[in-house]
């Protein structure tokens, strides 16, 4: 049916990437402007501003260090410049050490040591140009599809999501798993009410226990905060026909297809198994996609019923609409219309194949709508009681 390779880049550590990015990553919010101004002067680089990096409790600090390290280690990143202020609690050396394991070039800037923003930007611009020159030497070559890690996400879901877009993505997930590839199913809040289905598909009792414990922990955290029926799902979800978290979840997990759950990994942690893997991420789309990207995903398939423009700074994001009016309304943002399933113009099986072909094309370099519109949203999960409710 389809060629079982895509065209990707081979990285120095043997991993493969589908993009050839030079990234400027601030360690802390205080370094955002420097990173953004380097990008302004060298628009080919990708700056990833964020609001965190300091005054975190030790657990959060450790998680954030590892997640920023995971972002830099993502195989789509060819080279990276880390920008520290110099006094933040997330230590740049720790982040740099994680990324250096991938043998890719890692440059570091410390604003306090370099004498302020102007001097840091000037040095950053030079480093950026050098890294871009180095990245430009790389070329695409055929890579087995089994190397590809595909993340799945849904946002702005509606009553159709679980009937069209999500099961169609599920067909594509099964096709990819059957190729020997990896698919990440995320958003643990959106397992509530559907976890028994996934638990029954866990490869062994340990994985099953990890999955059920994670869902129970999430539910207890929600309950402790006095979540109401309305807070479980967004106003847009409800306007689109979703009534409860159970309904949303039963639709959400269809993105994972029907294969066995091989592993449960933490937020931003790279899967060690191939096949279908569950990652602990929040229902907040952007925080969830950051975790998926830090876990090494090459691209993300993102379903929506209401329509959303969001992308990622380092992973191409393929948007799949659950209904045709959504696709027609936001053509700048949606790549594939799974609403064709509802009007019986396509079967779910065919739509799944269409989505999988799109995945392969995007892996080989085709730009997604989110890339073309430069949607590069980025947010980090804060591991604490103020942020476990979404």
């Amino acid at each position, binding site marked *: 049916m389809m060629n079982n390779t895509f065209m990707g880049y081979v990285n120095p550590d043997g991993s493969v990437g589908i993009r050839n990015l030079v990234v400027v990553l601030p360690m802390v919010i205080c370094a955002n402007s420097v990173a953004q101004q380097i990008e302004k002067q060298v628009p080919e680089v990708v700056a990833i501003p964020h609001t965190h990096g300091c005054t975190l409790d030790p657990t959060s600090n450790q998680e954030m260090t590892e997640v920023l390290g995971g972002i830099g280690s993502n195989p789509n990143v060819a080279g990276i410049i880390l920008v520290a202020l110099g006094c933040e609690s997330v230590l740049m050396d720790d982040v740099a050490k994680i990324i250096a394991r991938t043998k890719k070039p890692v440059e570091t800037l410390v604003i306090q040591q370099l004498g302020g923003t102007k001097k840091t930007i000037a040095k950053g611009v030079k480093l950026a140009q050098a890294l871009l020159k180095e990245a430009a030497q790389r070329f695409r070559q055929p890579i087995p599809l089994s190397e590809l890690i595909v993340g799945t996400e849904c946002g702005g879901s509606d009553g159709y999501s679980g009937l069209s877009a999500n099961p169609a993505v599920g067909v594509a997930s099964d096709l990819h798993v059957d190729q020997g590839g990896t698919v990440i199913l995320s958003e643990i809040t959106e397992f509530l009410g559907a976890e*028994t289905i996934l638990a029954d598909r866990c490869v062994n009792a340990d994985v099953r226990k990890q999955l059920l414990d994670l869902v129970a922990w999430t539910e207890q955290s929600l309950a402790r905060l006095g979540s109401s029926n309305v807070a479980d799902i967004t106003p847009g979800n409800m306007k689109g*026909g979703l009534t409860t978290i159970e309904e949303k979840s039963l639709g959400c997990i269809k993105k994972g297809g029907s294969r066995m759950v091989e592993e449960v990994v933490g937020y931003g942690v790279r899967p060690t198994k191939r096949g279908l893997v569950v990652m602990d991420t929040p229902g907040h789309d952007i925080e969830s996609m950051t975790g998926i990207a830090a876990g090494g995903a090459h691209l993300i398939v993102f379903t929506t019923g209401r329509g959303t423009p969001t992308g990622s700074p380092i992973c191409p994001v393929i948007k799949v609409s659950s209904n045709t009016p959504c696709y027609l309304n936001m053509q700048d943002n949606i790549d594939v219309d799974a609403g064709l399933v509802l009007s019986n113009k396509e079967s779910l099986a065919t739509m799944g194949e269409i989505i999988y072909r799109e995945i392969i094309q995007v892996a080989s370099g085709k730009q997604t709508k989110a890339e073309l519109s430069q949607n590069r949203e980025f947010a980090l999960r804060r591991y604490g009681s103020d942020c476990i409710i979404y």
Partner: protein
Amino acid sequence: MGHILILDHARDNVGVVLKDVELGERITILKNDEELDFKASDRIPSGHKIALMDIPKDKPVMKYGYSIGSATQDIWQGQFVHAHNVTSMRGKELLKEGSDHDE
């Protein structure tokens, strides 16, 4: 009559309407080899749910073959099914020690 309703699973007691359904609009659908023929007793927006049969208060509302919550009042065949007559059963109170995960 055109294709206006999706019934996802044989166990479901609600269906999803594919267009805005008007009050009094006739709905027919084959469910478990039985022809259901009734009228919508509410206006129902596209993508939302309609009761395919009567659902007594406190009984599960079924979609995708599973419970999506509990009826907070008696729901009659043909009525609009949404947050005004269904509540989630999840995340509401601390799970009791040893409570099982199975429905």
